[in-house]
């Protein structure tokens, strides 16, 4: 009886993580769209919605702590709750980065871009996809999917390098570019960090499924 309600509570926790993940994927999505379309209202919404993510993070954390204390979970249940605790933090951080990007969009406002946007939206799409795919890997207990997802971080890192060089060149060409180039660089940096946190998600999902702790984040910088 007690165990049954325990398993129900685990299912609820799983649902909360999925809810959290969806909020975060949406935040990345909206921040990117706001950026591309100069949609200030949408950027505002991302900033407002971040509070929901923060609140849900605390709620999930509380649930994990009480399950640990009251049920003393073992084996797969222990790994699941441990994973929930860890990816809860990673998801919240990713939400923060999306929120920061939205704030930069608000700062840049409607001023014309100093360069056509190609690589940044591409990076953002990769990041969104990584989080989304890991969310599915989490739901389906799919180790291979989590592993394949982590591999995409190389691409994000590579694009970050390119964007970095390109913006540096623009700043050196014309000091008028420095202000916006710095903002764009910050966006690139935030996306690169999202990629790293998405890789953490992969690591924890793999641990949850198989008990292996792999180090998938290659530190290039």
């Amino acid at each position: 009886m007690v165990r049954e309600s325990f398993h129900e509570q685990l299912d609820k926790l799983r649902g909360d993580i999925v809810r959290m993940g969806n909020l975060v994927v949406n935040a990345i999505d909206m921040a990117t769209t706001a950026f591309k379309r100069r949609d200030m209202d949408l950027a505002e919404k991302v900033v407002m919605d971040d509070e929901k993510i923060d609140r849900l993070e605390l709620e999930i954390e509380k649930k994990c702590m009480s399950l640990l204390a009251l049920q003393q979970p073992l084996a797969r249940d222990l790994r699941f709750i441990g994973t929930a605790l860890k990816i809860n933090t990673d998801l919240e951080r990713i939400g923060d980065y999306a929120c920061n990007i939205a704030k930069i969009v608000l700062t840049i406002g409607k001023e014309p871009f100093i360069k056509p946007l190609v690589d940044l939206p591409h990076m953002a799409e990769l990041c969104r996809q990584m989080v989304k795919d890991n969310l599915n890997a989490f739901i389906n207990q799919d180790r291979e999917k989590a592993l394949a997802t982590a591999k995409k971080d190389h691409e994000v890192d590579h694009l970050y390098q390119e964007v970095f060089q390109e913006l540096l060149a623009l700043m050196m060409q014309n000091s008028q570019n420095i202000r916006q180039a710095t903002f764009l660089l910050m966006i690139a940096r935030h996306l690169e960090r999202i990629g790293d946190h998405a890789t953490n998600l992969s690591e924890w999902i793999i641990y949850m499924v198989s008990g292996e702790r792999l180090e998938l984040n290659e530190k290039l910088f």
Partner: protein
Amino acid sequence: MENKMETRKLSVYYKNFQALYSVDLPIQKNAVTALIGPSGCGKSTFLRALNRMNEVIEGTRVEGEVLLDGKNIYDPRVDPVALRKKVGMVFQKPNPFPMSIFDNVAYGPRIHGIKKKTDLEQIVHKSLAAAALWDEVKDRLYKSALGLSGGQQQRLVIARVLAVEPEVILMDEPASALDPISTAKLEDLIHQLKQNYTIVIVTHNMQQAARVSDYTGFFLNGELIEYNTTTAIFTAPREKRTEDYITGRFG
């Protein structure tokens, strides 16, 4: 790490019924090995095979080997009484004898020929202290052991086992009749005892196995399904059947 005991292809039969199937299990010296598994899987049978207590049950038959310090305890030259002095046993229900606390602890040494009062006093003191019971009973040594609480009785039984200076202590669900405080005391005691003894414990309480043991073996239907460090078994077991059992998803 060194194996204090080891079973090799150990099978045990009750008449025609096979209760254990070819079990290979190492028992590390100065460590606690926990045996877990559902009721009827053969834990007690396995435990009893480690000091030939099965032999007192009619119709039992043993195949394979049980090594103690590398020597097979089923060798016909081995004296079972001497063996059980080395490999002592603590049962589920505390079973003090209806005599004084002192006489309970002195019982084994007397059987083994120790008669001098001062020697016995010394053994009783040492054993009760090692069983973390001395302070609680030192003023009532000559009162009946039946007046002790359940937790105290269980520690008295452990003192009685320690009095004959065993090397290995087998415990079959020693805490199942104890309240949480007595259980905590017993677990602390097990932790201290492993410095000088090798301990094998059967328990139905997963958290207890996780707390007290260094190695864990999971039995199912008379087979040893998985053996590993306790940390590995309780965080990431290799076998799905182990995982299902310890997370309560069995059957």
